[in-house]
């Protein structure tokens, strides 16, 4: 079980933004190319297949949290000592 816990599953905020943008671009481009190609050969099924290919590519590229989506992790403040003032530590948490 410990091995599974070491697999990183999260993206940082920048990474989430990039993943969403990338997925929209890939699906849109594949869909439009599929529409043009399907119109040329007059087969709407080809349009659907090309869109499905775009969906698969997007799934591979943006669903797993690849390292390129974890380049800008949040810089957390260093943890305070438990002994210090409790009011200050609350303020610090809110800022995050």
């Amino acid at each position, binding site marked *: 079980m410990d091995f599974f816990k070491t697999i990183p599953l999260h993206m940082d905020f920048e990474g989430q933004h990039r993943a969403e943008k990338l*997925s929209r671009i890939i*699906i*849109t481009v594949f869909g439009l190319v599929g529409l043009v190609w399907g119109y040329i050969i007059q087969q709407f099924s080809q349009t659907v297949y090309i869109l499905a290919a775009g*969906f698969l590519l997007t799934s591979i590229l943006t669903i797993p949290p690849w390292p390129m989506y974890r380049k800008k992790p949040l810089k957390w403040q260093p943890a305070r000592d438990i002994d210090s003032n409790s009011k200050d530590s609350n303020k610090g948490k809110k800022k995050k």
Partner: protein
Amino acid sequence: MHSVLQRGNSILAYTLSFLAFLTFCCFVSTVFLNYSTGTNLKAVKVLVKNVPDYSASREKNDLGFLTFDLKSDLSSLFNWNVKQLFLYLTAEYKTPNNELNQVVLWDKIILRGENAVLDFKNMNTKYYFWDDGNGLKGNKNITLTLSWNIIPNAGLLPNIFGSGSHSFQFPIEYTTSRM
């Protein structure tokens, strides 16, 4: 977008929305096309009988028999938004009882990719040509028309009447011998 499931959900939802948009584009690209074309129809052998209609009133009604020739090239009707054609042949006529009678005599389904160049000689009708009385004997103006439904991938289900009808008349005598 922060978990694997959320990203999967978001991508799938966007893909399906985009598929709906593409389907709409497909519909728009064909909605203004003209699906009419010429047909060449001819009634060959025509006779009329007076027999009891057991499926209805058991009274003696007129039953028409005919064979027809049909020649038409429908391959121009197919495009990426047409899955199949439903062809049907109707006879239209007027009787003293009814201003307008329409009887479907024959039909055929043509899937896309099948042979759409029709050339039938001396075809029998598929369905009985019953009149609800004695309106067929000696009727001088029976009009055969080939019509079709376009069954699309997405969009409207237009009903098109082929240009090129054929009119014929029934004999003035009943045929009594067995066919």
